[in-house]
């Protein structure tokens, strides 16, 4: 077959196809899958979150001993841990709900004390003193949230949310310490920390997402990833101690809707 003959066949077939297409009625376009409407107006969740990040912080203070300034540095190891989380929201417009959440986190933290205690007889010859203290930490966070609900189907609901968070942090803060020493006072040994629980509040933010699967019309389970955090400043005689509260939290629990 010559090249001309081949082109002729191809063009003929092409026109044939076009002619055939013009002669058939257009096929109906498949309808996009419709999102199920949100029939419920009230949503609850309760569960456990794992606070992923640590909120370690350090407090450095000047101590006056033996007619000379020394140093007290306390490093608080506020590690990750579990938090209890509950929230409720109400659908106010289309897919928008407003809600309130509460997260409770508590942990027993280790405070590492590293101090320099001035010598009673000589200037500039501080004695190092180190010790540890079990310091309790609790965080209460109230979240005000705007929640956007995205129903995937009748059983699955995706929610994204965000808003301000109001943190209250209670933390044992080491204010001083006691030590034992004896002549010639070249060393000193930590005996105990003097600490007191202090509370402070701060405003932060929360943002996150939740995927829920409802195995009955009203009851389901879900998983959440959220960030809720704030910076808290506690006032000490020696100055201000700045610490982070909250952080990245993942977890899951019960989901209800009505």
């Amino acid at each position, binding site marked *: 077959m010559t090249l001309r003959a081949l082109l002729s066949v191809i063009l003929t077939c092409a026109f044939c196809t076009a002619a055939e297409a013009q002669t058939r009625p257009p096929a109906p376009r498949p309808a996009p899958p419709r999102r199920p409407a949100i029939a419920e107006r009230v949503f609850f969740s309760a569960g456990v979150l794992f606070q992923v990040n640590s909120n370690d912080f350090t407090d450095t203070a000047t101590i006056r*001993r033996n007619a000379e300034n020394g140093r007290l540095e306390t490093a608080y190891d506020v590690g990750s841990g579990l938090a209890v989380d509950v929230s409720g929201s109400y659908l106010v417009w289309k897919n928008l709900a407003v809600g309130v959440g509460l997260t409770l986190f508590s942990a027993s933290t280790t405070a590492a004390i590293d101090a320099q205690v001035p010598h009673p007889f000589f200037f500039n010859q501080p004695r190092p003193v180190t010790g540890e203290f079990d310091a309790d930490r609790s965080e209460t966070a109230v979240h005000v949230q705007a929640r956007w609900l995205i129903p995937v189907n009748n059983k699955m609901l995706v929610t994204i949310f965000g808003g301000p968070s109001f943190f209250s942090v209670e933390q044992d803060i080491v*204010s001083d310490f006691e030590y034992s020493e004896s002549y010639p006072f070249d060393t000193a040994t930590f005996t105990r920390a003097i600490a*007191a629980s202090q509370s402070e509040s701060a405003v932060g933010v929360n943002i996150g997402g939740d995927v829920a699967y409802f195995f009955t019309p009203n009851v389901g389970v879900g998983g959440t990833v959220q960030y809720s955090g704030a910076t808290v400043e506690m006032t000490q005689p020696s100055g201000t101690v700045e610490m982070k509260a909250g952080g990245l939290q993942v977890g899951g629990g019960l989901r209800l809707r009505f």
Partner: protein
Amino acid sequence: MKGVMALATAAAALLSLQVGSAQQPSSLRFNATTVNDLRTWDQFVSAQERAGGLRVTQVEQDPSLPSRTVERMHQYYQGIPVWGAEVVRDSDGGVPMSIFGDVSAQLDLDAQPTLTVDAATKIFLSSAVSATLLRPVNLVVFRLQNAEPRLAYMSVVAGTNEVFRAFIDAASGVELQRYSMLQKQSAVGTGRGVVGDTKKMSVRLQAGVYVADDPLRPPVLTTFDMRNNLIRALNVLFGAPLFASDVASDADNNWTDVSAVDAHAQIGWTYDYYFKRHGRRGLDNRDRPLISLINAVSQQDALSLPPELLDFALNAFWCPECGPGGIGVMFFGNGLPSNSTFFGQNVSPLAGSLDIVAHELTHGVTSASSNLLPFDEPGALNEAFSDMMGTSAEFFFQVPGSGIGQADYLMGEDSFRASGGGLNGIRSLVNPIAFGDPDHYSLKFTGSEDEGGVHTNSTIPSHAFYLSIEGGRNRVSGITVQGVGAANREQIEKSFYRAFTFLLPASASFSTARAATIQAARDLYGANSAAATAITQAWTAVGVN
């Protein structure tokens, strides 16, 4: 509340048993040492412990009685500590041996404060000038003397010149009581010494003033101020009693009497040197009191002193039999006014030179050990050993150098300052001849003055000490000594210390001192040690064989 009621009920019941002692309003005191009392009070204490009215705050073992355990318990009222209310129970294998307590028996007060912590904090911060809080503000039940207990806030406030614990009523904010914390703190003060440096002073707070009585070091270490009363000083030296009012004092613990500062601080340092370097506990190794007298004669009055009394202005000395009861006393003169000279030198208070202070204290060490006779060669060894330890104390605490307050081998250089291009100090261990003292045995002074030249001839052994450490060539013999080096000076210090305090007889000659110091080095570091070799070479270099 239940625990409190139980406490009150138990207290009332026990009071009816007439166990215990004197009572105060709301106060329950008991001293249980008999079997019956112990049984009763142990039940009471245990019941209170279970109810939360008493909480164990401390458990200690008494080293002197290893089987004993002492528990200290604090009283709580609805979770709030009752200030000062404690019970102490001493047990042997769980069996109570004594119980002493002072608790509040009938507490009945509202445990909810009206005042907030923030409001209380503001009140505390306004209670002193430039106040800061050294303790967090805490709620306590505060027991007023002869009055009902009150719910109170407590904190420790540090002001410009004060540190005090304060209590304010948790309802009204009225201050209930404050008391100074300074007495409970280590009374470490500061003071400016003769050469203008600032030193720490270990002192005691007594009746509202700070006194130069060291509560931290093991021995009695007290500095007495003769307040320019030479007659009084002489009387004390001859045995007249010393009184608390004689102790050097300062109102604010920021000491300004340079003699008091340097004598008190540097006697302490010398004690420390002996303890840390040689493991010696003071003069007699048994913490004999360290008593010193200062300010017998003012600098101005020194100008009019008769020659026979000039030592009380221009000298320092140790008198082992002086003082009340022959306690032994160190004395430091105050020198002369800065516009006056003595043999071409300005003389500032002698306590300002650490080597002089250590020199005098070392005389006390010698008198309690080898007790070298104070004349001729043993007397020169006595003086030499004091110079050796004087310079050693300097090198222990000061930076080496030739400036004021720096460590060197000159004696008294911080107090005796040349007024015009001359030499500072009174003797040199490096170059004795610079002060006219012998640096070789062949030049030994053989006259009778100065008890046979005890001070001038001291430089023969003290120069050997120097050569043993630093090395060098003796000017007269030309012999070169390989010293152990400054980094190893401890070896020479210890060798001479051992020889002079343990091995030498009271009438030792220079030759005996040579043999004893070499033996000490061998004992400590071996026969062929660098220290033994250096000491041998050094004695040979100064002509002592």
